[in-house]
C-alpha cells in the first residue's frame, strides 16, 4: 500500500481548506490538499452572487471569482502544495495517526500527515414528508450544482422549501435560468435570509409564504405537485392543504456539519443548535481536543464562506506553527480581529453565542 507523507494534510479544497493550505504553505510547510470533487473551490464555484461583509473578505466579489483568487494564491505556493482531486478522505485511525482515502472508486491510499486541517464542509438537511423519495425532490445545493456547474436546469416549475439565504438565492438563480418558481415556503414567521435577496425574488413576483410547509409530494413516477399547508405557532398544520403544481421540489432547510472524521478522531464534540449540529470544542486557533487536528469552515459550525476563509487562515498558520514553522503574530492577530469584526453586530449574534460555548483556553499548552 502506497503511503503518502506530508507535513499538513488539508481535508477539503473549499474556501476554508484553500485558505488553510495557503497559510501553512507560505509559512514553509509541505501541504497536501485532498478534495473529493474534480476541481478546487468547494461551494464557491457555483456562487454567482456577490458576497457581503467586509472588503478583507472579498465583499462585492462573486463567489466563483473568489474561488479563482484562492486557486491563484495556491498556485503561488509552488511545490509546497500538492493537490489530490477526486479524492475522498474515508477514515482516520487515531492509534496509527493514519488517514485513508479513496481516489476515484478504484484506488485506495494511506496518508500519514504530521498535522491535519479538517475543512470538510457541510451537507444538506432533509425533512420527512410522504413521497419525499420521488424523483424531482432535490436539495437546493444540488440544484445549484446542476445549474451553475453543469448547466442543467432541474425542471420547469419549482416549489422552494425554505426562505433562508440558500432558498432565496437559488430561487433567484432558477428564475435567471428561465425556470418558474411557484412559491417559497418558510415554516418560521419571518424570512431567514438577507432582505436584499428576498426583495429580488419578490420583485419578480414569487410569493414567499411564511408559516407554511410542505405536507406531501404528489406524483406517480415523478413529482407532479405538492400539498402545502399553513402552520400554527407550534408548527402544527392548520386548515385545508392547498395543491401546488410543480415538477421539482427543492429543499433549502439548512445545512449540518460534515463531521464524521472529527468523531473518528475522538475529538470532544457538542451539539450546538446555533452552529447547526455536533461541532468540536476548539481553542481560538481552531485546534480540536486532538492535538494533531485543526478544523475550519462549516465543519465546525455552519457560517458564511467569509468566516470559513479566516478560520482556514488561522488553522493553517497554527498547524504550521506547531511544526516549528515561523508565523508572524501580526498575521494571527489580524485574522482574529477580522473574524471578530465579521461576527460583530446583530447578524452574528447566534454565531457568537454558539462559538463561545465550544471555545476553550489553553490547548496550546498540550503541544
Amino acid at each position, binding site marked *: *500500500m*502506497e503511503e503518502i507523507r506530508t507535513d499538513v494534510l488539508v481535508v477539503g479544497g473549499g474556501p476554508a481548506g484553500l485558505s488553510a493550505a495557503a497559510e501553512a504553505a507560505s509559512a514553509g510547510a509541505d501541504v497536501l490538499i485532498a478534495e473529493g470533487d474534480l476541481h478546487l473551490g468547494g461551494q464557491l464555484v457555483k456562487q454567482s452572487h456577490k458576497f457581503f461583509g467586509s472588503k478583507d473578505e472579498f465583499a462585492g466579489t462573486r463567489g466563483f471569482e473568489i474561488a479563482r483568487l484562492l486557486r491563484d494564491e495556491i498556485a503561488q505556493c509552488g511545490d509546497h502544495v500538492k493537490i489530490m482531486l477526486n479524492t*475522498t*478522505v*474515508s*477514515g*482516520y*485511525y487515531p492509534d496509527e495517526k493514519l488517514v*485513508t482515502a*479513496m481516489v476515484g*472508486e*478504484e*484506488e*485506495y*491510499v494511506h496518508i500519514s500527515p504530521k498535522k491535519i486541517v479538517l475543512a470538510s464542509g457541510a*451537507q444538506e*438537511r*432533509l*425533512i*420527512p*414528508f*410522504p413521497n*419525499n*423519495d420521488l424523483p424531482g425532490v432535490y436539495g437546493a445545493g444540488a440544484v445549484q450544482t446542476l445549474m451553475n456547474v453543469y448547466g442543467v436546469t432541474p425542471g420547469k416549475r419549482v416549489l422552494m422549501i425554505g426562505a433562508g439565504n440558500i432558498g432565496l438565492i437559488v430561487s433567484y438563480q432558477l428564475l435567471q435560468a428561465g425556470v418558474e418558481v411557484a412559491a417559497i415556503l418558510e415554516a418560521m414567521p419571518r424570512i431567514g435570509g438577507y432582505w436584499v435577496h428576498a426583495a429580488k425574488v419578490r420583485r419578480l413576483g414569487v410569493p414567499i409564504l411564511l408559516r407554511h410547509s410542505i405536507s*406531501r409530494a404528489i406524483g406517480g413516477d415523478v413529482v407532479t405537485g405538492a400539498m402545502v399547508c399553513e402552520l400554527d405557532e407550534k408548527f402544527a398544520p392548520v386548515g385545508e392543504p392547498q395543491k401546488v403544481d410543480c415538477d421539482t421540489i427543492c429543499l433549502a432547510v439548512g445545512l*449540518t456539519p*460534515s463531521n*464524521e*472524521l472529527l*468523531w*473518528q478522531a475522538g475529538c470532544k464534540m*457538542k*451539539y*450546538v*443548535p446555533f452552529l447547526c*449540529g*455536533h461541532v468540536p470544542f476548539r481553542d481560538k486557533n481552531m485546534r480540536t481536543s486532538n492535538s494533531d487536528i485543526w478544523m475550519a469552515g462549516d465543519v465546525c459550525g455552519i457560517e458564511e464562506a467569509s468566516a470559513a476563509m479566516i478560520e482556514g487562515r488561522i488553522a493553517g498558520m497554527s498547524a504550521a506553527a506547531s511544526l516549528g514553522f515561523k508565523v508572524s503574530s501580526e498575521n494571527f492577530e489580524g485574522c482574529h480581529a477580522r473574524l471578530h469584526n465579521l461576527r460583530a453586530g446583530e447578524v452574528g449574534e447566534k454565531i457568537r453565542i454558539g462559538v463561545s460555548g465550544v471555545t476553550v483556553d489553553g490547548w496550546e499548552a498540550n503541544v
Partner: protein
Amino acid sequence: MKDDDIIICRCEEITQDEIRSWIDKGYRRFDELKRVLRVGMGPCQGRGCRDIILRELAKATGEPLDKIHPGTIRPPVKPIKLALCAYGKEAEPA
C-alpha cells in the same frame, strides 16, 4: 409500501413508521436502531437520516437533542471495495 410511507433512511429504505415502532419497543439509541434496522449503514452512512432519527428519539424520550447520542461513527465514510482494502491499488490477489 403504504401510500403515506415516509422514507427516512433512503439507502436502506426504512420508513418513519418502522423507526417509530422500534422506538416504542424500547430502542432508545441511534446505534440500537442501526442494529435492528440497518439505518445509517448504506452508501451515505447516515448523512441523510441520522439527523431525522435523532429528532425522533428526542421527541419520544423527551430528552433535548444534545443529550441524544448520535451513534458511533466509524471509517469508512463512503463505500469501498473490500478488495481495495485487502490488496491496495492492484485490487487483485497475487
